[in-house]
C-alpha cells in the first residue's frame, strides 16, 4: 500500500487525570473515504483536534503523507493540505457567504498577507469562489451575512469553506448533525461530489450516511479502536453492537 495519506501511531491524549485517547493507531489510504463512529464521549472529536493541531497530543505520532505533523500549529498543517470542519459550526458570521468561501481560497491561491491586491478585481479568485458557491448551492444566499443562514445552510457553508483551500485530505466532523433526512441526503450527495479524488475522514453518527459514503469504518469506543474494516463487516460485528448500545443488543 503506498504511503498512507494519514497515519496515526499509538496516539494518546489526556486532559489532567482523565485519559481521553488511549493509544489509537490508524492508517488512512490516499483517496479512501474513512468514517469514524462510536458512542458519545468516545473521543472522536478529540482525535480530530489532535490531527488538525488544535490540541497537542500527549503521546504517539501523526504523519501526513509520511511527513510528521506533530506539534505543528493548525495553519501550518492546513498549508500542507489538511483541512477540517467543526462539529459546532465555525464560520465567519458577520461576513457574507461569498466572502466566507473566498477567505477559504485566499491562502491556497497564494495571496498570503497581501495588502496590495484588491480582492474585488481578482477574476480567477472570484470565479473559483462563485464555482464553489454553486457546488454547495448557496448562490441564492451569496450576499447574506453567514450568521443569518439556517442551520443546514451554515453546515453546507462550513463544508464549502473546508474544501475551498483545495486540501487533498479533508476531515469532516459530523457534517449531517441536526439535519433532517432530506437535508442529510442532500449533504451526502454534496460530500461525495466535492471530495471525489480526495482523502476523506469523517466522524458521523447517522449509520445510513456512514454506510452510504464510507469504504472503511473505524469504531472508537472509550478512547480505543475496537474494530476497523469495510462497512458490512462492521455492521455485523457483535462487539460493535454491544459497545454502541451499552449492553447486549436484545432489548429488555
Amino acid at each position, binding site marked *: 500500500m503506498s504511503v498512507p495519506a494519514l497515519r496515526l501511531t499509538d496516539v494518546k491524549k489526556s486532559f489532567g487525570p482523565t485519559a481521553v485517547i488511549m493509544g489509537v493507531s490508524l492508517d488512512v489510504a490516499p483517496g479512501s473515504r474513512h468514517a469514524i463512529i462510536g458512542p458519545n464521549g468516545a473521543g472522536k472529536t478529540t482525535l480530530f483536534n489532535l490531527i488538525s493541531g*488544535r490540541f497537542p497530543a500527549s503521546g504517539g505520532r501523526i504523519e501526513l503523507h509520511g511527513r510528521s505533523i506533530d506539534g505543528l500549529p493548525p495553519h501550518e498543517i492546513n498549508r500542507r493540505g489538511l483541512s477540517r470542519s467543526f462539529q459546532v459550526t465555525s464560520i465567519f458570521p458577520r461576513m457574507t457567504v461569498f466572502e466566507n468561501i473566498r477567505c477559504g481560497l*485566499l491562502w491556497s491561491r497564494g495571496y498570503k498577507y497581501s495588502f496590495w491586491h484588491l480582492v474585488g478585481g481578482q477574476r480567477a479568485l472570484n470565479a473559483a469562489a462563485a464555482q464553489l458557491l454553486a457546488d454547495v448551492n448557496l448562490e441564492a444566499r451569496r450576499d447574506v451575512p453567514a450568521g443569518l443562514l439556517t442551520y443546514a445552510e451554515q453546515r453546507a457553508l462550513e463544508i464549502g469553506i473546508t474544501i475551498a483551500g483545495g486540501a487533498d485530505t479533508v476531515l469532516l466532523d459530523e457534517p449531517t448533525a441536526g439535519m433532517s433526512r432530506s437535508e442529510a441526503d442532500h449533504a451526502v450527495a454534496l460530500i461525495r461530489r466535492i471530495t471525489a479524488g480526495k482523502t476523506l475522514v469523517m466522524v458521523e453518527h447517522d449509520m445510513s450516511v456512514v454506510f452510504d459514503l464510507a469504504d472503511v469504518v473505524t469504531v472508537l469506543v472509550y478512547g480505543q479502536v475496537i474494530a476497523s474494516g469495510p462497512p458490512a463487516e462492521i455492521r455485523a460485528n457483535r462487539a460493535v453492537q454491544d459497545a454502541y448500545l451499552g449492553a447486549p443488543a436484545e432489548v429488555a
Partner: protein
Amino acid sequence: MSEGVARTAARPLAAGGAAGFLRRQWPWLAALVFALVVPWFSFDWSTGRHSGFIVSMLSQIGISIIFALSYNMLMGQAGLLSFGHAVFLGLGGYVTAHVVNATKGGAFPLPLELTPIAGALGGLAFAVVLGYFATKQRATAFAMITLGIGELITSCALMFQTFFGGEGGVSTNRMTGRSLFGVGYAAPIQVYYLIVAWTALSVVAMLLLTRTPLGRMANASRDNFERAQFVGYDPRMVRFFQFALSGAFAGIAGALYTLTYEIVTYDTVAGPMSANALLMTYIGGVGVFAGPVVGAVLIVLLQSWVSLLSNSWLVYAGVLFIMMVTFAPMGLTGLVMMHQPIWRAGRLGRLIGPYLRLLGPALLVLIGFVLAVELCSFLTIGAAQGKSFTLSRITIDPRGARPWLVAGLLLVGGGLWLRVAMRGFGAAWNAVTEEVKTVGTRA
C-alpha cells in the same frame, strides 16, 4: 468635512464605470467638496483672512479622521481593542518634527508636502517594534499590553531630551521654504488644504485596504480566529501586519499634527489622546467603515464647542459614552444602518412622527442635565476661578435655590415624559419592523 453617509461605503467597490462610481461614492465626493469650500464661509472679506478658530478646528477634524480611521483598522476591522494608539500618532509627530528641522538645516531637501511620509515611516517603524510584543496576545491581554506601552512611551517622552525634548517637547517651523508647489505654508489655511489632501489620500487608502486579502482576513480573524487558522492563516501575523499598517496611518496624522501646531509634546502619546480615538471610533460606530469619520467630526465639534463654554467636557464625554454603550452599542452609523431595511421598504415615513415626539422630552432632559452639571461645576471650580455662570447675559447664581429647582424640574419632568415617549417609540419601531419583515424588502 460633512458626515459621509455610511451606507454606500460599505458596499464593495464593484466595477461599474464612472457613472456607477459616482452614484455609489457620492457621499465621499460631497464630503471632499464640502471640506474644500467650508473655510470660505467664515472668510472675513475685509481683512482677507480666515477665522483662525474655524480653520484650526477643521484642521483638527482632518487629523482626527485619519487617526480614528487608523484606530478602527484595529478595533472595527480586526477586533483588537488598543489603549495606546496615540503612541503612533505622537511618535509620527516627533519623527516629522525632527525631519522638518533637518530639512531647514539643509540636510536633505524634502518638500513640506511629503513630510507626512516621514511620519508614516516613523509610525510604521515603531508599530513594527512595539507590535511584535503586543500582537502576541489578543483581547484583554492585548488591551493591557497596549495600555502598558502607552504609559511606557509617555514616561519616556517626559524623561528623555534628545528625541522627545522632555517636558517642553520638540518645536519646529513648517516654513522650510521647500515646497513642491512653491507654497510658503505661513497661513494656516494653506496647511489646512494640505491636511485635506492627505486626509482624502488616507481615507481612500484605508478604504481600499479593507478590500485586500489582509483586510479580509483581519475581519475573518475578528469574527472567528480559530476558523481563520484552519484556512491557512496565522492569526498572529494577520494582527501584526494590521497593527503595523494602522501605526503608519496614525503616523501620518501625527505628522499633520506637527505641521499644524509646530510643536509636539508628551500629551500626543498620552492616555487622553488614546481615549479620544476610542471615543470617536465607538461613538461613530465600529461596524461601518465611515463610522469613525462621523465620530471624529462629531467629537471634535462637540469638544471645541463645549470647552469654549464649560470645563466639564469630561462629564459630558463620560455620559455620552455610557448612553451609547447602553442604548446604541453599534454607534451612530450602526443606528443609521438599522434603518436601512425600513428605508428600503419605504416605511421610514412612519417613524418620523415617533422620532419627533421623542425630540421634545429629550431636549428637556438634556437642558436640565447640562444646567445641573454647570451649576455643580460653577459652585466649586468656577468660584475658585472667579468665573460667574452667565448664560447669554443673565448671570445665574449657583448658590441660589431657584436654578437648582429649574434643573431638577427639567430633569424629572422631562425624564418621565421621555420614558412615556420611548415606550411609544418602541411600539412604533416594532410595528414597522414587523411590517417590513412580512412585506419583504423593496430593493
